[in-house]
Structures are given as C-alpha cells and as structure tokens.
C-alpha cells in the first residue's frame, strides 16, 4: 500500500494526464449505462427514465424478443453472417498486408496501400449502387456476360443461396485494405535482424513469411480476433439494411434490422434497450472466454 502511494506520488504527472481520459470514460461511457435500466421498465418519454413504471414481469421486453416467431432465425443469421465475416474477412487483410510488406518499390507500395484502403470511406449506399451495377439480373455487367456466353442469368441479389456471399464479399472488398494497415504496422515492428539471420541460413521469401512475419504479427491477429468476437452480434446493420429485400429475409434478417423495424414502428425504446443489453452480455461472454483460451497460448489481451 505504502509502496503504491509512493509510486503514485513519483509518477503524479502521468496520473494527472490520465485523468481526462478516465473522466471521458466515466461521463460518456459508464454514466449512460444507467439508461439501460429502461430495458426493465415501460419507458415513457414524459416520465423519463426513473419515473417510468417497472415492466411487469421484469423480463417482459426480453420475452417480447424471445417469443417472436423469427427469434431463432434472426439469431442464427446474426451469428452466421458475423462468423463468415470473421472467418473469410480476416485472412484477406493479413495476406494483403504481407504482400504489401514484400513490395520493394517504395512509391508503388504507398500507392497500392492508398488505393486498397480507399473503399473503406465509401458509404454502403454507394457500394450497393456498385454491386447493383455489376450483379443486377436485368442490367448488371456480370449477368449480361453470363447471358451472352452461357445463356443463363444468376439472381445474385434476390437469391437466398447467393445473398450472404454477396454480403461477405462486399464487406471484404470494403475493409480488406483498411484492416491491412494495422497488420502492416505490426509487420514494421518485427526485428529486421531476424530476417537477416534467416537469409544467412538460406531461407527463401516464403520461408521467412511463414516463420518470421506470421508469428511476428500473431499477437495482433489474436487481439483483433478477440475484439471482433465482442461484436459478433453486430453483423453490420447499415450494410444489410441497404442491401436486403423480401426475397432474402430468411438469410439476412439480423437482430439489428429486426429491432429497427419493430422499434421504429411502435416507438418501443424499452425493447431496443433490452435487445441491446442481451447483445452486450453475449459479446462480453465471448470476449472473456476467447481471452481465456488465448491466454493458454500466451497471447491474451489482458
């Protein structure tokens, strides 16, 4: 204890600088959490958060969600789409980062990097416009080509077989370059002497990739994976809301789109809060357990 006080006194300037950050979290991140209490209340705008009556029974809004005939489907969709986005979405960023890292021409390298992360700044509305231009069944480039050469069109945007592929594919296109940035930063931090030593021992480029680059960024990969698991129930509301249509609801309706439609229609804030709480709890559980597992391999976040 005395030691702790002593060390605080010794680094008091640093602790002082920490204060604004702590205050930020207390005010903007922790205090609003009390608002989650409306998940257990029948929230009414006039009465406000505290005076609104308690829901009877307390799990009323959770039950509302659970009893929806679509509960199973939207939960499964949310998990699957998220999982696909993690499984298929992480490797392209890693591979791209390693490819860019291997480029020796500095200006070309910069150019590739810029071009590859630009899509990150496009909104989903624009991306949907582009997807439509390529894949539309009536006038998309791909389908015109298919029609001319194999006399058969594919309903990419209205078929339940294709829709998730399109979702994941467009997500990868948008975010691969952006996620490569963090891996590139990690790659830049690898000790260059390791590469020199490997070269002396006669290792080729692929050998070095496999034995030096990849292990070098392993901790960053695990870190990002754990962070992504925390958001596993956020399957990408903006994207799906813009892209889906009634044909593909069975494979694309996720928790957020459901809450948006139901909540908007009936101004049910308590339902929204209940579902948000449910999502956060699952996310927390996943993050904690993923970290446990990662720690066993000596890579945990904390």
């Amino acid at each position, binding site marked *: 204890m005395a030691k702790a006080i002593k060390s605080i006194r010794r680094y008091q300037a640093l602790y002082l600088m920490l204060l604004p950050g702590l205050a930020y979290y207390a005010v903007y991140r922790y205090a609003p959490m009390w608002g989650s209490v409306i998940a257990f209340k029948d929230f*009414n*705008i*006039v009465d*406000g958060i505290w005076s609104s009556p308690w829901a009877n029974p307390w799990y009323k809004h959770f039950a*509302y969600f659970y009893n*929806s*005939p*679509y509960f199973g489907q939207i939960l499964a969709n949310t998990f699957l789409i998220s999982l696909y986005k993690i499984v298929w979405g992480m490797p392209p960023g890693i591979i791209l980062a390693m490819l860019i890292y291997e480029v020796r021409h500095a200006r070309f390298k910069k150019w590739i990097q810029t071009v590859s992360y630009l899509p990150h700044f496009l909104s989903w509305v624009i991306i949907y416009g582009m997807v*439509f231009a390529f894949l*539309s*069944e*009536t*006038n998309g480039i791909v389908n015109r080509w298919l029609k001319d050469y194999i006399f058969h*069109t594919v*309903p990419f*945007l*209205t078929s339940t077989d294709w829709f998730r592929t399109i979702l994941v594919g467009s997500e990868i296109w948008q975010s691969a370059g952006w996620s490569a940035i963090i891996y590139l930063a990690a790659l830049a931090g690898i000790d260059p002497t390791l590469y020199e030593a490997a070269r002396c021992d006669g290792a080729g480029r692929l050998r070095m990739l496999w034995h030096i680059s990849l292990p070098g960024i392993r901790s960053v990969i695990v870190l990002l994976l754990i962070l992504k698991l925390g958001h596993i129930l956020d399957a990408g509301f903006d994207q799906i809301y813009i892209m889906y*249509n*009634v*044909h593909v*609801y*069975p494979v694309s*309706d996720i928790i957020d789109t*459901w809450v948006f*439609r*139901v909540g908007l*229609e*009936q*101004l049910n804030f308590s339902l929204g809060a209940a579902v948000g709480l449910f999502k956060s709890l699952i996310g927390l559980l996943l993050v904690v357990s993923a970290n446990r597992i990662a720690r066993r391999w000596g890579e945990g976040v904390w």
Partner: protein
Amino acid sequence: MKKGMIKTVAAGLMLTSILAGCSSGGAPQPTATKAGDAGAAPKGPVKVSVFVSGPGVPSPDKDPILQELNKALNMDLEFNVASSDYAQQLNVKVAGGTPPDIFEVNKTQLEELSKQGLLLDLGPYIDKMPNVKKTYTPEEMNKGKAGGKQYSLLKRGLQQQNSLWIRKDWLDKLGLQPPKTLDDFKKVLIAFTENDPDGNGKKDTYGLTGVGDFTPIHAFTPVYAAFGLPIPGNYMVENGKVVYSTLDPRTPQAIAYIAELIKLGVVDPELMANKGLKDQQKAFQGMAGVIYRAWGELAKDNYVADYKKINPNAEWVPVGALTGPGGTFSGFYDQGNAWSRIALPKSLEKKPEVLNKVLEYLNYITEPGEGQNLVNYGVKGKHYEIVNGEIKLLPAINEIAYSYQVQLTGRTEGSYLKTKFPNQAKVIDFTANLPVVKVYNGLISNPPGVVVDDKNRFEQEEIVKFMYGKRPLAEYSQFIDTLNKTYQLPLYLQEAEKSLKAAGYIQ
C-alpha cells in the same frame, strides 16, 4: 402566496428596468428581457417556434415567406426543419420539456404522444380558427383525431396520383392498342418482352417493371385492382363489415394471375429488389415498357427531358383502369391517407399569448385566409400575380420551391398542383379521377401487445413465395391458418372494427 410573490418580483424588475432604461439611455439590459417574459402583455412580436421534417428552408434573412408572415402577424417565427432523424430530435425536445410550439407528428407519434398526455386537445380552439372550421371537411378533421379527440390537425393535400404508364411508341411500333382489360394487359406485356419493341434485334426488354414493396405503388396494384382488390395487407369495408384483403378469396386468384406473368418472364426479375427510383431509371433506359407510378415520376418536365435524352422517340402515356373479374379499378386509395399532421404541445395552455398567436397563424395560412397564397405561391407581385382572378406564377417562383414545407395546414391539392404544374394539368386530373378501391388502413390502430412487423414480414414473404412459385398456391389456406394462429390476425381485425366504428365507417 407564490403568485403574489412572482407579481411583486415582476413589478420590481419592471421598475428597475424602467429606471435602468432611464439611466443608461436605452441600452438593452438583461433584466429588461426577464421582465418582459414575466409581464402579462408583451408589446414586441410574439415568439413562435415550429419544428417539422423536410429537406430544409432558407435562413430567415433569405426566406421571403417567413418575413412576410412575421410582418403580417407581428410575430417572431423560428422555423426549424430537420432533414434527418426528425423523430429522435422531436423526442429529445419533448422529453427535455422544451417542445416546439407547433410540430409535425405521424400517426404513430400522434397516438403515442397523445396517450402520454403531451398534446393539446384542439377541440375547444377550433372556433378561434374560422378558416380551419370552414375549409376542413369532417373527414379531414377526423384524420387529425386520436382517441376521439382533436389532438392534431391534418396537413391537407394529397390525392390519387398513381396510374399505369406505358410506352406509347412501343405500342405503335408493334401495332397494339393501350390495354383496357386484364387480358390486353397480359398481351401487351408479352409483346413487349418477345417482339423486340426497341428494334435492336436482341431480346433485352421486359413488359413490366416497378417496385415490389407492399405500398400503393406496388407494381401489381393494377392487377389486384382489376380483381376488385387492394394489394394484400389492407383493410376494406364491404357490406358494412371489415374485410382484410389477404383473407379475401379473390386474392389467391389475383396471385395466380401474377404468378403466371412472372413465369412467362415478362416482369423485371428484380422487382422486389428495386429501391428508390431504380425502376423508373430502368423504364427510362428502355428496359421495360410498363410501370405503375405517380405522375410526378413520369410526367414532370425534368423527367420527360431525362427520358427524351436517352431516346428522343420515347413517349410515356398514362393508361386508364383495367377491367377484370372484379370490375374496373386502377388501384387503391387509403381513406385515412394523410400527408402529415401538426400538433401543439399541452404546455402551450400555460402561455396564452403564444397560444393565441399560434392559432392566429394557423388560421391565417389556411384557405381562404390571406396567408394561404403566401405559403403556396410566395409574395404577391414578386412570385405570382393574379390575372383575371387566376393565379399566374412568375419566374421568381423558383426561389420558393421549399414552400410546401411551410404549408402547415396544407392546401387544396387539385388547384394547387395545376397552378404549380400547368404543363401536367391534364395528367393530374386524369389520375385523380381514376376509379379506385377504398381502403382504411390510415384510420386503424395496431392492437397492443403484438409485433406488427413480424406479421407483415411473414405475410409479405409468403405472398412473394406464392407469386414466384416457390410455394404452391394450394397451400394458401395453410398460410392463412398460420397468419391467424401464430400472428394473431383476429386481434388486428377486432381493432380495425373498433377503429372504423369509432370513425363512423361501419355500424
């Protein structure tokens, strides 16, 4: 005791302000404004705040309508328009205890806010607005009511605007007549798909395009109408009883007909995925020759110029109602249809001078008030003039293209549109006078404790499956069973009966 104290304080403040005014030679003091608020009779213009949704109005110094209103009514109008997230912003303002003096509400907001006791019942104040009393029909008054009380006023306007549109030049090229019956309709769609109407030697056209959403511009609305029906999911009244269109035995017949069209390949395969104006663009690009849309999307000068630029020979013309087994109807129209509604906060009761000004303002801009022309067509002599009793727009009218947002109590639609769009007057009358099936959705509340969207989703999803042959139509009765049992359709029908009885449409 408390009141007396406030008065004393107010008087004291006033006295100081007068003294201060004397000593400092008229420079405005903060105490002076405070005294003005507390005093009973303010002399300056009354502050009135309005909050509505829309793309936005110009800033006050560039807003001729606002300036004229302020001059005419001796008020200080603060006109705020939210271009996005209107509902959230309104919630914040209302929850924060500082509601605007006049704001826009949709049906859900009207019901929720009035239930929570936040809206002022306008019933007792209608007499103070003689123009409203005179111009509003009983139906229009009804559309502003919630729970039997006048919690809002309808923004008047809206009339039937949709009709079937067809490429006249394609018809001519193939030697066809505009369709009059459901059978003609099918023939035209087939010919437009198979007979190469654009003459490029490729089979790259479809008969029908449009939007697949279950709204009044649903692409197959004319087909359902020819069967005497609205699209599924609407409430009709037949023989004094509520009829839900999905349950009507004619609906599966209409769906069978649509399924056949889809199977023939004469319909844009992406109908259900078309969003925004995508279908209109496809039509303009010559991918389809028939579309069901409002005249605004096909006949406005800029759109005509758009499609003429792509193909100078293209010519889109409206087609009348199709005759089918259910009679001759072109579409359906919601008797509860409302452009928007405006409401006043309950708290305005405590500020009589603001309330009076608000009522005066609303009365002024309602036909036949002098302000109606101002909010419709701008400043007389600058934006419009009156020639032989008829309103003629001047070129400066473009300055006030935003004016529809300041028409808080709306307008008389037909004459307004024809004045604003003289080139389209014929089409406007044509579509407004088409025979339509009446529906009543806008007057019906949702029953409590149900998830409306789950029902809508199931209903629409299954109907689309029937249309696209992914589920055999023989299972239609099973579909209705599920709708009744799992999605509690009887509750909706009970509620509909209750609402329509209250509104006087059934006994």
